[in-house]
């Protein structure tokens, strides 16, 4: 007897609305229909209505978890188009933020993966150690998410000398905790029973569906933009690409866990070797032409293509998020497994589909705080954080 089990559009498995129709026989999934578009906001339509320097703020709001990756790929694309090379210090800054974001994203996924298999303790513990990283972001860039660090021709903010030890201190904590999580999660027999040989995506399917990121590397398909097409500081640091052959959910989890260690390594080296100097080159105009930017986001390769006609706005701006390719591969990965596994497999590619700065708090129609007041509150908190970290 065939039945349709809907997952979504509103389902606790996903933070975002997507609709998966699982066609099941008993508990076994025989087919999957994916219906997306619940999150379609038309970025490619809005982008040509904004100027070159406004677009990073728009693409930042494609996805809140990879809110560094999209602007990063976008500025790389524009720099490719205009043949601009940003100053070395800004390259290092961008690399550091890119890697810190990767840790934040992988930890987020790890916590949610724990939640999905009903292991809330993992979720709470992992997110407990993710929280100081968000404080660090707030300290460096003034916001917990939506960092706004990338700018055409450089970085928007500098990392101050006095923040270095704070980052180092956090990395020490993280290194210790990451070893703990890796051991705890990979040695737990019940977790292994749930994750091993589930949702296997073979290498052939991975190539045919052109998946990217940890999803591909978990299937033995060794692609990583940071190694293949090194940009910014990635060819000046020493790190390893993590590849596993199995293709199951456990392999993807392993890739993400071990990648955090590599990210720690990269950030340490960047902090150590960071050159002095300015953090941006002036870009006066974008000449007519086209440019491609790619960045290895936590989920895979982010691809941005821009075309300029010499005016102050892009003519066409194409965005390809890694999940666009990864989610389509679920159709083959989920077939033949049970509903309980399907939920896990759908989450295992770390699906991500994906707001502005005006803030008011209204209380029964009366304005209580203005934007300025809130900005002040925010500064005060940043100061407080700084004091706390000094101790």
């Amino acid at each position, binding site marked *: 007897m065939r039945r349709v*089990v809907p997952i979504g559009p509103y389902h606790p498995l996903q933070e975002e609305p997507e609709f998966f129709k699982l066609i099941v026989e008993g*508990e076994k999934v025989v087919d999957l229909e994916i219906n997306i578009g619940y999150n379609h906001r038309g970025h490619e339509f809005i982008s040509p209505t904004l100027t070159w320097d406004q677009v990073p703020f728009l693409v930042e709001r494609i996805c809140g978890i990879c809110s560094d990756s999209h602007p990063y790929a976008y500025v790389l694309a524009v720099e490719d188009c205009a043949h601009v090379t940003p100053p070395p210090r800004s390259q290092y800054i961008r690399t550091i933020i890119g890697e810190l974001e990767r840790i934040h994203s992988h930890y987020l996924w790890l916590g949610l993966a724990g939640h999905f298999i009903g*292991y809330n303790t*993992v979720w*709470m513990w992992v997110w407990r150690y993710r929280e100081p990283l968000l404080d660090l972001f707030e300290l460096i860039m003034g916001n917990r998410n939506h960092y706004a660090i990338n700018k055409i021709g450089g970085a928007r903010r500098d990392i101050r000398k006095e923040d270095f030890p704070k980052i180092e201190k956090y990395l020490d904590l993280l290194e210790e905790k990451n070893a703990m999580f890796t051991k705890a999660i990979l040695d737990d027999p019940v977790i292994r*029973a749930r994750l091993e040989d589930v949702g296997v995506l073979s290498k052939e399917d991975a190539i045919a569906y052109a998946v990217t990121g940890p999803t591909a590397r978990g299937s033995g398909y060794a692609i990583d933009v940071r190694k293949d097409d090194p940009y910014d500081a990635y060819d000046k640091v020493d790190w390893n690409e993590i590849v596993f052959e199995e293709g199951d959910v456990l392999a993807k989890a392993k890739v993400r866990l071990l990648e955090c260690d590599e990210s720690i390594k990269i950030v340490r080296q960047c902090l150590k070797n960071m050159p002095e100097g300015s953090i941006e080159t002036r870009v006066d105009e974008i000449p007519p032409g086209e440019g491609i930017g790619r960045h290895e986001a936590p989920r895979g390769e982010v691809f941005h293509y821009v075309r300029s006609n010499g005016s102050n706005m892009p003519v066409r701006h194409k965005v390809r998020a890694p999940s666009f390719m990864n989610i389509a591969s679920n159709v083959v990965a989920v077939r033949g497994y049970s*509903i*309980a596994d399907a*939920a896990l497999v759908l989450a295992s590619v770390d699906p991500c589909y994906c707001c502005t700065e005006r803030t008011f708090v209204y209380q029964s129609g009366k304005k209580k705080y203005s934007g300025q007041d809130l900005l002040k509150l925010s500064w005060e908190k940043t100061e407080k954080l700084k004091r706390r970290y000094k101790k």
Partner: protein
Amino acid sequence: MNIVRILFSFIVFPGFIFSAVIGLFLTWIDRKVTARIHWRVGPPWFQPYADFLKLLLKETIIPEGSSKVLFFLGPLLGVVSMSILAVMLFSMNFNPASSYVGDLIVIIYLLALAPIGIIIGGSASKNPLASVGASREMTQYFAYELPFLFALAIVILKAGGNIKFGEIILAQEATGPFLYSLSGVIAAVVILLSTQAKLSFVPFDIPEAEQEIMAGPYIEYSGVALAMYKVTRAMMFFTLPLFLISLVWGGFANWWAILKFLLIIVLIILIKNTNPRLRIDQALKFFWIGIGILSILGLVLAFYGL
């Protein structure tokens, strides 16, 4: 006069109201301990009562096209069976003479009523996820019931083949709790794991896996009906550990029982918080092969008096 006493014992003490109040308090302990394990603070003590009160006073929506009678029968079955179970456990512990032949069988049936209520309710909801939940509940019931019955057989064997509940308690008073023997430990472990499954706690919360099938059988329930399910769950959290204590740990008609009771509760909460959810086929394998063989071994040991 007698009727009033019986009604009092079923509705107030130790029946519905008493076990519901204590049960809800235990769910607070559960949430608090869970929160502490998670490095959190956790809810205040009145939280489960506030939840219950709010659900009672909220709108109850009956999904279109589902049978009203069956939709409410589901939660009602659980509440009624757990009230009766609480009364039986108390009367037999404090007055073993009130026991009659075969009352253990009655208790087994009462314990089965709660999952049957969930299956009825889930099937009556007319929701694909609820029916998946109901079918998982059924599978899981068949999974844990077999070793559970074997464990009860161990207890009966050790009590000298007596299926009177009062006799089991008296036998333990005479020879010491069954727990202090090898087969008694096996029986206790099996009953504890079945309790975990009966309570639908992780790793056996498969029927109501929130992240997979959105609370499963309860998905369409709201207001009073959901409150009844919640209170059934709370009452089970009270009566099932008591059942375990009276079967293998010498009854609860003494002050030590409170400590034993809390120990079992904390054990259940710890198991809940240090395991991920199993898949339904893994749960089936676990109960039938792993725990099944263990319980048969216990039966053999009990036969030789170990």
